[in-house]
């Protein structure tokens, strides 16, 4: 039986080292564009490197520092361990 896909959670609730897929960014259009131009595009895969202020994610080879206020409004779907 295929496990049901995990529900989206806030990026700030993701565990360090976890891999997730970007679900949604509840931010103003300019902030969304900034994230997308840095590589955080729709459904992209990311790895959480550090939590807190700032939280650090890695998207492919790019490390991105994200302030806590923004991280709380980014929603991701955790991927099963072993992915990425």
């Amino acid at each position, binding site marked *: 039986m295929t496990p049901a896909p995990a529900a989206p959670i806030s990026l700030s609730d993701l565990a360090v080292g976890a891999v997730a897929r970007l679900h949604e960014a509840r*931010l103003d259009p*300019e*902030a969304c*564009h*900034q*994230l*997308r*131009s*840095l*590589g955080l*595009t*729709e459904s*992209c895969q990311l*790895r959480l*490197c*550090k939590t*807190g*202020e*700032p939280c*650090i994610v*890695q*998207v*492919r*080879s*790019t*490390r*991105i*520092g*994200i*302030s806590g*206020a*923004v991280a709380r409004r980014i929603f991701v779907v955790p991927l099963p361990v072993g992915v*990425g």
Partner: protein
Amino acid sequence: MSASSVALLGNPNTGKTTLFNRLCGARAKTSNFPGTTTAMRVGRSQVGADTIEVIDLPGLYSLQGESPEAAIVRGVLRGDTESRPGAVIALVDASNLFRNLVLVAELLTFDEPVVVALNMVDIAERTGLRLDVPTLSRRLGVPVVPMVASKGIGLDGLRTVLGSLPTVQVRPTDLPAPDASLEQFTTWIDDVLNDAYPGGAPAAALDARTERIDRVLTHPVSGTLVFIGVMGALFWTLFELATVPMDLIELTFGYLGSGVSAVLPAGAIRDLLIDGVIGGIAGTVVFLPQICLLFFMISLLEDTGYLARAAFVNDRIFRRFGLPGQAFVPLLTAHACALPAIMSTRLIPDRRDRLATIMVAPFMSCSARLPVYILLTGLLFADRPALAGLAFAGCYLLGSGAAFFSAWLFGKTGLKGSPRPMVLELPTYKRPSLSNALLTAKDQGQAFLQTAGTVIVAICVVMWWLSAYPKVGAPAEAVELRQTADSGVAPAVADELRARADVLEARAEQSGSFAGIMGRTIQPVFQPLGYDWQLTVGVLTSFLAREVFVSTMSVIVGGGAEAEPDEGIRQRIRTMTRDDGSLVFTRATAASALVFFVLAMQCLPTLAVTRKETGKVKYAVIQLVYMSGLAYVTALIVYQSMRAVGIS
């Protein structure tokens, strides 16, 4: 054929400045893109037998969006300005190819021929990335030149390609349409890289060293400690090291003034040249060492990748007051001098955040305020040095407090909004480039002299004229002293008498000058703050630069125009009297003047730089009116409150 001009485009942190410097050497010129305050560097480079113009475009991640940088680059590529290039060099970081190529994909939708400069291939190879360059070139439909710009590797290949580019770009047939979304470009680049990496695009590995360093540098405690250490070193360098070249500059211009004085006969032209022009140029050039040193060190720090981490450390505190984390460099630098501080706000990407920082940076106590603080705290607590020391420290706190309060106030009023929540690329840690730092320092110094410098010299000439004219006759006492000196007394006595006559004449000149007349006229405005006409003259003349206050007061009490008067002169300032015989500097007046000097905008060069960096006169006017208004009201409250509780 080769284009007559090429533009250099790329993401931030890809080595764009390094490649530009390699192509153009030290001969680049810095100006602004037409109608903007974004800096544009233009240089010349040899391609075969031709000399081509190289335009350094602002670093950016995407051509889409509303940022000023994206709008400028789109305008240049569309030919909206005269600076339309014949071709574009797209610089990409070979070790972070995916994100870099999304910008290239967007660029390919324009008409200009493109060559991709694949930089840092050495780092990519060390991390095990093996790229099939011919396949990448075929899929993108443009030449791809592998290179290591920092070592000059691949430059000849790039020049060869630039000499044989087609005039029109042929787009790959599967390239997304010009109005495609970032996601569509991303999908296309995914497909391109799956082809270009034998065996498919590799999964990005985590860099353990970067992980470890980031944990320390962005940690609330260790990150703050490292930040204090780094900024302490930067502050010390600006404060201490810059004094050597600054003293040399002052000495050189002093000699130049003496030389002109020896050659030209006394009169208005000599005064204009020595006190107006040479004094004005000296007053401008003296800022150069701090500006060059600051940008040299910022360039080194930026190259290492540290600045992005430090911005996050400060963001936690600064954003509560409506300032971004990146404001730490300008605000700290402003303790040395507001001029380089305001110029360094270019590090802040968001215009609202940049404006807020520019508007409040001059509140920080700069080095020019030091002699004023020393004089006034000494007058305030003449016999209690410990309290004078506390008052001195209080001045720094008051300045910083006013800066943060004003930033918060601007955020609620004229510059509504909060600082943009911080999202930054954390670049890989790298060894900084000394040659880049030197060229950046040279460029910024040159830009300062060319733009703000000319305004500052003009302002200095006008202020000199107001302080020196109209000429008044020598006072009777001075004439008498000179007659006695010429009557055959001993040479040492004659010299002393002439020196005293010089001082009396200078004092009379100050009093009778336009600035002196204005002081007497405007004095009623400063009456509620406890200032008499003499103190008002001191305040007015120091609108050129604060440190002038000390020399003005020194001249008024009959001393020389030294910036740091000796104890005898200080004693005379302490006991100087008003026209009714009462003391000028009571405790309440000294406190009121001290507060006024902490908060007032008394530096015309700063206003000139504010105008230049914001692109609008209105911000310089607001800065002048707001700071001086706040200074006036606060000084008024201090004076009247002290009087109300019986301290006069």
